[in-house]
């Protein structure tokens, strides 16, 4: 059943929902990356919670005008309007008062959501129209979605992607370095506005699938995940889009395959899974890579210090050092240096002396700064320079036995 869903075999509507979710996920991942790089990730949380009063007011207006209160276009227009009001209040609070952005986010989020809940209870208790389904906007529900609604979501996701593609340069520049962007003649407040507009678009389109409480996850998690894999902004953006799309597509598919599997939470958990994988296994920024790097560094330090101790005839008590030296064939089991061990130790000590002389030479300061106790001197100096230093040290001597 899951495979049927993933391979788009569950009928026309389910297919459209999956494709729409993937487009939404891509748009959300990409928009979220810009937001994340601009360090404003949680603004999306305020925007998404601020949609609830709009949805309810739109429902009330449409129902009182005698229409169908559940018309998705009407509800989405309402949600966009109230998200806009919320965003305006948020900006006003941050710019014109002493409140920090995080406090303003929390204030807008809770006030608008609280007001939305009041309106929800008004709708429920007043018994206007067929109100069933408005709660679906909280956590998303794709069950029983109409064909037109699915089409609207897929179209909206695609349109958002097109807008991002057209404005990607300005978005990247501003999210990375607003001052530089401003010096380049880009209108930074306008681009910020565009970014927020995209966040709003993603939120509004995602209301029906992911729900307003969890849509912020779709904006944050893929962006953070992609950041693990690359240091280049264009690649991070593409990866975030890809991760978002994959999580949304698989989540929507799994959700369609069985009852009692709400779409929004599943999509969020899928992207959280991708995040956890990346956190641990990403190259260079991942935890595993860091652990391996740390271990390798530790071994090199131990080996080096062991060799220096051998060369100076000092006893080695450190177990790890002895083990490493033994494994490299540099000492025997009883702790006595082998032939290679003695040679390598002599070389290590000589290198240390070479560095010492190099670091005393003010003319060589840039090279001397590279000294960290591990770096081979051959990577810094030419053979000629090394020979020059060796002339100061003198000829090799026997290792004391």
């Amino acid at each position: 059943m899951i495979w049927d869903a993933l391979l788009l075999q569950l009928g026309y509507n389910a297919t459209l929902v999956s494709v729409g979710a993937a487009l939404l996920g891509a748009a959300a991942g990409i928009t979220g990356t810009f937001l994340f790089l601009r360090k404003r990730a949680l603004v999306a949380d305020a925007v998404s919670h601020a949609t609830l009063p709009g949805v309810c007011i739109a429902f009330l207006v449409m129902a009182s005008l005698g229409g169908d209160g559940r018309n998705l276009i009407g509800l989405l227009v309402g949600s966009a309007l109230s998200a806009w009001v919320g965003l305006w209040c948020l900006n006003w609070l941050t710019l014109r008062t002493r409140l920090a952005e995080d406090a303003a986010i929390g204030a807008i989020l809770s006030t608008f959501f609280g007001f939305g809940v009041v309106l929800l209870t008004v709708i429920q208790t007043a018994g206007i129209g067929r109100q069933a389904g408005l709660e679906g906007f909280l956590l998303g529900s794709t069950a029983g979605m109409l064909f037109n609604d699915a089409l609207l979501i897929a179209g909206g996701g695609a349109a958002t992607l097109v807008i991002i593609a057209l404005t990607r340069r300005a978005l990247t520049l501003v999210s990375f370095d607003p001052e530089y962007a401003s010096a380049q003649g880009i209108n930074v407040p306008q681009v910020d506005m565009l970014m927020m507009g995209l966040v709003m678009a993603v939120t509004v389109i995602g209301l029906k699938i992911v729900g307003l409480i969890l849509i912020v996850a779709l904006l944050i998690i893929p962006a953070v995940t992609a950041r693990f894999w690359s240091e280049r902004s264009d690649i991070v953006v593409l990866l975030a889009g890809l991760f978002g799309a994959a999580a949304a597509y698989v989540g929507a598919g799994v959700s369609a395959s069985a009852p009692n599997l709400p779409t929004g939470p599943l999509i969020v958990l899928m992207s959280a899974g991708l995040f956890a994988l990346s956190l641990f296994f990403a190259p260079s920024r991942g935890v595993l890579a860091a652990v391996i790097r740390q271990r390798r560094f530790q071994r090199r330090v131990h080996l080096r210090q062991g060799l220096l101790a051998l060369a100076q005839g000092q006893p080695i008590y450190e177990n790890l050092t002895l083990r490493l030296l033994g494994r490299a064939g540099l000492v025997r089991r009883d702790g006595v240096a082998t032939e290679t061990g003695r040679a390598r130790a002599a070389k290590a000590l000589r290198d240390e002396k070479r560095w010492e002389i190099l670091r005393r030479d003010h003319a060589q300061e840039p090279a001397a700064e590279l000294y960290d106790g591990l770096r081979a001197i051959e990577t810094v100096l030419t053979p000629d320079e090394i020979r020059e230093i060796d002339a100061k040290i003198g000829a090799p001597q026997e290792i004391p036995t």
Partner: protein
Amino acid sequence: MSGAEFVPLSLPPIAIGTCAAIACALPGNFLLLRRQALIGDAISHVVLPGIVVAFILTGVISTWPMMIGAAGAALIAVLLIEGIRRLGRIEPGAAMGVVFTTMFAGGVLLLEQTDTSSVHLDVEHALYGNLESLIWLDATGWASLLDPLALAGLPPELPRMALVLVLTGLFIAIFWRALKISTFDEGFAQSVGITTTPLGLALVVVAAVAAVAAFDAVGSIIVIAMFICPPAAARMMTNRLERQIAWSVGFAALSAILGYVLAGYGPLWLGLYDAVSAAGMIATVSGVILAVAARFGPCRTRAGAPAGV
């Protein structure tokens, strides 16, 4: 309105709501100044999986397992946020966003997968709480407040919330000087011998306890709103921490009382028949108070900003 109606039906919810509001607003003052305002938001989201897991393990809706589950979830969330922030070198806001949405999503999924048809446990309940249902059936009027037999029938949330309020107040009173110094100047606090890291953690724990207790009684919207809105409004009124806390307590109590009254009786005045969500209305009122304070408060602008901006 007569006491016979007011005391059993409205007094306990108002008292519980007020206690919850003040208990959240007190630590909220410090969280706001330390730029940790959204911790309340994160905690109130992650409480849901904790409660669901507690329900699955015990199979009943009872207070203590759920409180322990919620507190455990809050603790796990704080550890995860900190771990992800350090391991992944991610900014705190994004780390928080990853953790609380994931845990909330997990909670919702677990809840949908569990058979809760026999008990009162669903996502809406977690969000809005059930303040209106905390009534005092043994009361007959104002005289019941002095009647030990009737007092024994008070909803258990009231003494619990009052206890948490007292504990929160005690924590702040005892560590007042250390909290104040470390909030404004962490470096100076360390140099005069205050251990700032455990103190910061203790503050978060106190906030979590207040949030979990309040959540049980009134739902998560109030928790988020009360952590932020009353302290933020109070911040617009004064430059002194003592007065800010006093203002925030006043604002929190005003939001709770006014919100409950508006939710319960406002629709009747408008000619409608049913009450609206008290939790939502309390959050709304606190937001309105913040809006008024942000527009007219004497200390609303940043220090040093030009007048009139």
